[in-house]
């Protein structure tokens, strides 16, 4: 976090924000103008009419009805104009269009539950499509809260015992803060999260995947992704080549090594041959393969081994679209864990500039875990 971090305005990312900002800046402009009038006026008079100055004092005035009326009526008219624009903006904020997509929010000490109309649920994160009006219907389970998205310029109280509503149309894809903005007890400041505005197609996919940024993957699928990512297929094709043996159907076969020893290709052998290829160099090949010790996570290795086991069988026909989509960078997470962190842990997280902000961005979706029970 840079000390020289001086943004002057929040992002403008919704239709409400687009309507809000011109009114706000006009009011600020007017305020700055009148502040200067008063400041310069006061200083000018204080200097010009300081005791002993030569300025003319003849015929001082003490009461003047026209002047009084002028500076009563002009502020009154300006006030009424401001009132009109503020009220018109307010009415817009309070009247959601009929075709809005409905979502539901429950506030409780100290997290936000969000439910989409098709049953997808998430905590402290709200996924919304860009370009379509979204209407939130909200209620609190305990004390007062307030649901506040600064980048959208929307805020509404979340009250126990009654539904409140809020609507907006996101205009810019991205991630923005959600804050609880009604004091609600000990961890009030940590009752927040983010709104993720997605392109409508991505959002539809996310929603149909049950709230996953990608469809749940089997280990083999995840392994195929790693296989493609580190380009194993450059050398290890469907046939043995000059550079490398084919891995198709390798699992369970006996391998003979350059030093004359041999082993059955089990999981341990496969893993070992990735992280330290020269422990068991296959007979007839040179030392051309990179050493992947420390380059791949154990998770990647598990998935990779699972994929290699099925290479050459129909199970390995992983749809390439998944691979392609998954190779696109994404930081969209599954759900947000509501784990409460101690102040010390937070402190540690903040001191390290490279550390991922701890609570608000949850653990990345793990294909292997997500696949369980959801694999279609």
């Amino acid at each position, binding site marked *: 976090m840079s000390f020289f971090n001086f943004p002057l305005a929040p992002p403008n990312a919704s239709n409400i924000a687009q309507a809000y900002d011109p009114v706000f800046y006009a009011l600020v402009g007017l305020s700055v103008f009148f*502040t200067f009038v*008063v400041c310069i006026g006061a200083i000018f008079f*204080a200097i010009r009419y*300081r005791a002993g100055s030569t*300025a003319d004092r*003849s015929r*001082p005035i003490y009461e003047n009805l026209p*002047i009084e009326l002028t500076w009563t009526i002009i502020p009154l008219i300006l006030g009424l104009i401001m009132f009109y624009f503020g009220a018109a903006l307010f009415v817009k904020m309070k009247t959601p269009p009929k075709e809005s997509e409905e979502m539901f929010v429950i506030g409780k000490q100290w997290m936000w539950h969000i439910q989409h109309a098709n049953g997808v649920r998430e905590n402290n994160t709200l996924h919304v499509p860009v370009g379509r009006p979204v209407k939130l219907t909200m209620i609190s389970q305990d004390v007062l809260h307030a649901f506040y998205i600064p980048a959208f310029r929307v805020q509404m109280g979340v*009250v126990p015992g009654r539904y409140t509503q809020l609507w907006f149309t996101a205009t810019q894809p991205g991630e923005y803060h959600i804050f609880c903005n009604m004091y609600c007890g000990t961890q009030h400041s940590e009752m927040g999260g983010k709104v993720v505005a997605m392109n409508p197609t991505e959002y539809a996919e996310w929603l149909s995947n049950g709230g996953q940024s990608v469809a749940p993957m089997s280990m083999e699928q995840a392994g195929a992704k790693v296989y493609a990512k580190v380009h194993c297929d450059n050398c290890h094709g469907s046939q043995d080549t000059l550079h490398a043996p084919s891995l198709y159907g390798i699992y369970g076969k006996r391998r003979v090594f350059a030093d004359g020893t041999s082993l059955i290709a089990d999981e341990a052998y496969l893993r070992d041959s990735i992280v330290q290829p020269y422990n068991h160099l296959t007979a007839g090949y040179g030392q051309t393969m990179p050493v992947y010790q420390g380059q791949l996570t154990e998770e990647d290795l598990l998935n990779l081994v699972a994929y290699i086991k099925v290479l050459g069988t129909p199970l390995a026909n992983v749809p390439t679209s998944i691979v392609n989509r998954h190779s696109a960078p994404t930081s969209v997470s599954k759900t947000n864990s509501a784990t409460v962190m101690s102040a010390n842990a937070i*402190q540690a997280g903040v001191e390290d500039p490279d550390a991922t902000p701890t609570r608000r961005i949850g653990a990345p979706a793990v294909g292997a875990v997500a696949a369980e029970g959801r694999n279609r």
Partner: protein
Amino acid sequence: MSSTVIATDELKPKAKAEEVNYLNVEHTISSWLLTGDHKRIALLYLVSTTFFFLLGGMAAGMIRYELTSPAGVVLESDTYNKVFTSHGIIMVFTFLVVAIPAVFGNFLLPLMIGARDLAFPRLNLGSWYMYMTGGTLILAGMLFGGVDTGWTFYTPYSSMYSNTQVSLVIVGIFIAGFSTITTGINFVVTIHKMRAPGMTWFRLPLFVWAMYATSLMMILATPVVAITLLLVVFERTFKLPIFSPELGGDPVLFQHLFWFYSHPAVYIMILPAFAVISELVANFSRKRIFGYHFVAFSSLAIAGLGFLVWGHHMFVSSQSMYESIVFSLISYLVAVPSAVKIFNWMATMYKGNVVMASPMIYAIAFLMIFTVGGLTGLVLGGAGTDIHLTATYFVVAHFHYVMVGGTMLAFLGGLHYWWPKMTGRLFNDRLAQINAVIVFIGFNLTFFPQFIVGWMGMPRRYHYYYFAPEFQAYHIMSTLGSTVLALGFIWPAFYLTMSLFNGKKAGPNPWGAHGLEWETSSPPPVTNFLETPIVMDEVYDFDPEAEHAENRRRIEAAEAAKSDERKGSMEDHQ
């Protein structure tokens, strides 16, 4: 009425009378604690409100220190919540509401209208005891566990969820509230019934007018908050179903009742500041205030309309859309009388003879800062524009511009202005002028960054903001400013106290000001006036033209003397 005037020859010799004043007439502790003298009670209030201000200021310092880091520095979240709650409760209920009326109102109201004392001296002393009892209970609540509800005590958190000393502190506020009510009654009766002969309503100093408007609000609004807070205690203790939806109550009802008091309370805090500023601007411009009637009636207009705008605190509370729009409209109307005052004060300086003594520097700083506070209030008063800003640091900055930049600067200005009258001693005005500039700089450095960080979306009452590190730079600026501001608040305590020991004797009217309080000795005698004054002249009866001619004559004479001297010395050299 003229029969009440005591003939001059019946009085004790003047020299003797000036020696005995309200300060030195008795020296025992009981003579202070059992006094009925409004001046002594004012000093009791001055000491006790200053004490509470110190406590509230320490809490503010802890908040500012904690917010320099996005993940806090030393406090746990629970403690932080108690600290900002303490800051709010102490500053609002034991300082801002009380300070100017109970200190300067008490001291000056009888002096300004030519009365011996307030209408009910024992009730006045009783007010102070109620205030001290309430303040002690509030402090006890903070010592024995603290409160974490925020000064607003929003239900159902305060009534059903908070496990802190809510009841004790509320009882404290309840009792302190009665001190406000009795003070208000005392002032209203005094202003109606005890004006000196010739002191007609439109010869009243504007201080008295604003104090009158303040007193009306105190009497009408304070009982509402007292009852409301007591209902919170009943719901906490007896599960009386009023505010909690679990019991069948309505949490938003609390907000209506609370703000029905607390919005007028904002004017209870700022109208006395207007009172002081009117005196300062008129007396240091040495000119009758411009548009006296408009300034006087604008106070009453604020007092009246101030009761009809409470809903602008509740635009996101779930009150109906139409309600919000009506409250927004009335909020813009109440802004007009404040604008009228600002323009009239500025016009007062026009063709006056402005003396830039320390109280006038505070007054001009007030004009500038209060203007910013008022104008940002217009941004918040718009129903639509408030939605994004409500409960953010923008609001925090706004009400500190009004409360600290308004009330606190007026308090300091008034303290410097009337200090010679209260103590009979002059302080070093050069130091005071420098201090006024320090306060102005420190104040703006503290609170201006909060407008920006609030506009960016930083919520108030947040302990952590590690998820939004873009806010940090502004918090650090604000904390730096608060150290400068703290210096500006502490320093006067030293040079004013020093003046008691080594200050020159003030004389009855060191500022050359106009008003009955300056016609008696400093410090005033126990009975305020040795004879009941008869008011013959108009309020702020300065003659700027004649004074200007006199000033010029004196300056030109001095210049002539100087050039003669120079000529003379040149001739000597030749």
